[in-house]
């Protein structure tokens, strides 16, 4: 059930977003997948760091995720209409001069994975910046989902413990289940795992 290869058009290549993406891409409501103060809202914040450990002040972090019930606000979710009507699922935050970003959202639910397993709650992340000729893609998992993370088929593809750990957020001290920290290291020691999607 695949499409005939004869109809293939060649793809448009990627180019860097450059140092001035802040002219065109940030939105006032971008970081707020849900409004601040929404019941059960969580905060995910962190820094984007380069290979020298220096903050990247001109990056854009984008997130995409399921709703708390594991549904997607999208017609290609074959399980039917989204349970969380109106949940945007998408966050976008430019980094500040300290390389910091912050997203306010709801915890995603688990989703069925390709091949029959269940993917633990996660967010897909794209990072764009000067110096990145194409986006880099990673995932954010949650530290208080140890059982689900242990059964996650994507985490299972990364065998080195220290590499896998780069995909799991850490609790923000004092924030309980509502605040998480997730740093993105583009290069070097503790480099974040990036995915070919």
């Amino acid at each position, binding site marked *: 059930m695949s499409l005939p290869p004869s109809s293939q*058009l060649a793809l448009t290549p990627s180019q860097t977003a450059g140092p001035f993406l802040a002219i065109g891409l940030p939105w006032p409501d971008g970081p707020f997948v849900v409004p601040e103060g929404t019941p059960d809202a969580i905060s995910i914040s962190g820094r984007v760091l380069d290979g020298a450990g220096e903050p990247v002040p001109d990056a854009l972090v984008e997130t995409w995720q399921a709703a708390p019930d594991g549904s997607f606000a999208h017609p290609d979710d074959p399980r039917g209409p989204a349970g969380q009507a109106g949940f945007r699922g998408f966050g976008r935050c430019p980094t500040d001069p300290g390389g910091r970003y912050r997203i306010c959202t709801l915890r995603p639910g688990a989703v069925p994975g390709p091949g029959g397993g269940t993917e633990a709650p996660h967010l897909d992340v794209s990072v764009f910046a000067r110096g990145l*000729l194409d986006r880099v893609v990673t995932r954010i998992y949650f530290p208080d989902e140890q059982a689900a993370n242990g059964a996650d088929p994507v985490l299972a593809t990364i065998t080195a413990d220290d590499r896998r750990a780069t995909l799991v957020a850490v609790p923000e001290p004092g924030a309980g289940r509502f605040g998480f920290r997730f740093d993105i290291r583009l290069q070097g020691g503790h480099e974040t795992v990036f995915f070919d999607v």
Partner: protein
Amino acid sequence: MTTEVPPVPGRLVLPSYQRPAGVHPPLNSPGYASSALRAPGLPPVRLAQGLTEITGPLLGAERVTVADADLTTRHRGEPLGERIILTGRVLDSGGRPVPDTLIEIWQANASGRYAHGVDDHDAPLDPNFDGAGRCMTDSGGRYRFVTIKPGAYPWRNHHNAWRPAHVHFSVFGRAFTQRLITQMYFPGDPLFGQDPIFNSVPDPAARERMIARFDLATTQPEWALGYQWDIVLRGPAATVFEATQERR
């Protein structure tokens, strides 16, 4: 606030998006100095596309006004420079139009200066030009912007380095896998040969696909030059996806 969602049937048919082998620039591109400390050193891990990847944000028209597609009429006066019309279609690799998808653009002014505090190029700002535009594709995947032709500008990548004139384009498509940020260039630019960003795309034919085509039919007499540029995103092919778990 969790509502009941139907359980997953045993077998589902989901699209799977082709991987863009050989099209995009390698992240580590020695000619582009900014990549030295930012390009990951380790190869990416192949991710099997699942529901998170084959869906994506469907950002509605509520985010865009008609005026956002005309970068020449948003200020008190008209910007300086050569007025142009940029238009084309967003398609997937199967040739299908991508309707109702958000396109965002940003660019330098006619003098080659960005309206951004970090740009210290010794060229004038234009109080009538901020360089940002947005529109939604129509039902046929078409978009259309009115703007001015951006100028070339120097940068410090290497001695006497100049960027060819370009417009930054950001496109969502309908799936996370289709997300694309790129640059559109103008035909015949003499600066292509020395530009490490343009040339970071290894395949010469692929580089050509970043260059708009001057089009007399799009050009409006006594008013603006017209350029056509189509954007092609990764396309879906249907594959069977096994999913037996219920949502938690």
